[in-house]
């Protein structure tokens, strides 16, 4: 069996450790995601969903437990190593797109490549092909303010794919979109999953969207309470 993309064992995250207001958010999470899986994590706000996402996304380190991302140890990584892990191993898709307002679509897609040290000509070439993949090739010179919500999210997905990271981490990617646009964004994820074999982790509070994925993991009060097989894509 190949190396799991996510391999988490006994992950505990505590804030204000050792202080009177010490707060344990995650109480020992075990999570394994295999390459090519489309997994969703659902949970109400306050369930520890965001904290878990930050840990999976290598934005933070767990207080206890071990976490290997694509075979690389994240729990003991330095801040500089975390930066490189985020750059090479994870493609982020945010709820509010988080595009850089002053840069056009293509420059936004190029950004992770810039931090990866890819030369300008190659960056532009790759960014163009990614924009084409998400159907945004005509908007390469447009700034985020000139794009609709769905278009922005497509650009953001192209950006997440830029470094060809093994994990696509989407945090409420349809949260700021209307139903029709949400549908098209979800379809894009399904296409990426099916045709490119992308490993996708979708974090959402929407059970219908979660149900479309291979596996649904429910998080309540910092614990994984349920794991069920999703229905896959409903056409």
């Amino acid at each position: 069996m190949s190396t799991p993309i996510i391999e988490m064992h006994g992950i505990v995250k505590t804030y204000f450790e050792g202080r009177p207001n010490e707060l344990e958010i995650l109480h020992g999470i075990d999570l394994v995601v295999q390459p090519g899986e489309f997994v969703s994590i659902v949970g109400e706000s306050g369930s520890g969903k965001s904290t878990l996402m930050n840990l999976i996304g290598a934005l933070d380190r767990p207080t206890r437990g071990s976490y290997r991302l694509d075979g690389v140890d994240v729990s003991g990584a330095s801040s500089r190593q975390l930066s490189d892990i985020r750059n090479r191993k994870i493609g982020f898709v945010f709820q509010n797109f988080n595009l850089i307002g002053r840069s056009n679509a293509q420059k936004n897609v190029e950004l992770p490549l810039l931090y990866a040290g890819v030369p300008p000509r190659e960056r532009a070439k790759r960014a163009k092909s990614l924009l084409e993949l998400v159907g945004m090739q005509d908007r390469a010179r447009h700034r985020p303010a000139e794009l609709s919500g769905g278009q922005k999210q497509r650009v953001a997905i192209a950006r997440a794919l830029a470094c060809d990271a093994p994990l696509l981490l989407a945090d409420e990617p349809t949260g700021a979109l209307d139903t029709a646009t949400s549908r098209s964004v979800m379809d894009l994820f399904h296409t990426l999953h099916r045709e490119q074999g992308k490993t996708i982790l979708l974090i959402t509070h929407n059970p219908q969207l979660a149900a479309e994925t291979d596996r649904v993991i429910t998080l309540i009060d910092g614990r994984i309470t349920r794991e069920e097989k999703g229905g896959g894509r409903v056409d």
Partner: protein
Amino acid sequence: MIDNICLAFASLFANKLRALLTMLGIIIGIGSVIGIVTVGDSLTGSLTDSMNSIGASNITVSLQRKSSGEDGALMFGRSTPGSDDLITPAMIEDYRTQLGSRVESIALSRQVGSGTVSSGEDSASVTVTGVNADCQAVDNVTMTSGRFIRDEDGERMVAVVSDVFVESVFPTAREVLGQTFDVEVNGRLLRLYIAGVYEYQDDGTVSVDGSDPVTTVYIPIEAARRVLGESEGYQSLTVVGASTEDSTALLDDTEAFFASYYTHNDSYTVAAGSLETMLSTMAEMMSTVKLAVAAIASISLLVGGIGVMNIMLVSITERTREIGVRKALGARNSAIRVQFITEAVVICLVGGAVGIALGVGLGAAGASMLGYPARPSVAAMLLAAGFSMVIGVFFGYYPANKAAKLDPIEALRYE
């Protein structure tokens, strides 16, 4: 790096007014330094040029009252030099024998006064000056006909006049050499024989009413002395060193030579000076002024730098989310730091460039107002550019470091 510079310009253009206001401190600081340096350099540069053309190395030896701070003799000493105090022809002869090989000419002159020469309805204003033969070289006098004053002329009332003078006083005469004219000087009427005519050189002074310029009538110095009824001796003389001579050394030796005659004189001594020494004194003064302006400007630059720091802190707060996104996408702390330092440096460099342009412009305007050609100093400009860069790095580092250390989770959540 290029990406960072583009980014910095993009954020500069996103907030044009803010960027301009921030740069103002830098612009004023750099601009004032460059302006003053430009004016100063133009001034000293032009003076050096013009003095070289009129003989900056000419040494003027003149009587000077001894300043005696200790006994207050100054107050009671003779206020005008008596006949015992003057530089005597004997001293000059001695000087000629001892240092003559190093000296090209020794010019002696004495102003008799200004006067008017009338001929019919026309009149010409003149100044009558007694000179010796060496004055021709020192004053750069070019003869058009006849000869200059000679030392053999003694007390003879011969005169050398300008061509302008000839035109107004003898407009019809075919030959003026040997002609006589009367000039009234200091209430005395002098009858002078024209021995030579020199070419009048316009020194740039314009007469107010458009009348003919006042020209000099040269007469022998002995004649001038007799007219003035003064004793034999001079208050000042001009020495022109041989072209191979080091003028500073000659100046020191000349002063020492003449001063040796005055060691026992209570009231007077001789001092030697040249435009060259004056010039170096002026250059020293100028550099003091420059230093003072630099000090004031550095305060302005400090304030400007603090302004840059302030705006960078504001900018980083505004762009917290952007920083979070960049970090999430894999920007290392160092990349964020470099990005914001670059931005601060770009603000300072653009400010510096505007300041340099402004300074050169104002300096050139100032120099031309004073009547000198502008000479912008490239060294000063490069220094200013370098200095603005240093300010950018120095005042940009703290905000940039703050940005680099932001927690990506907090930054992403920032509204």
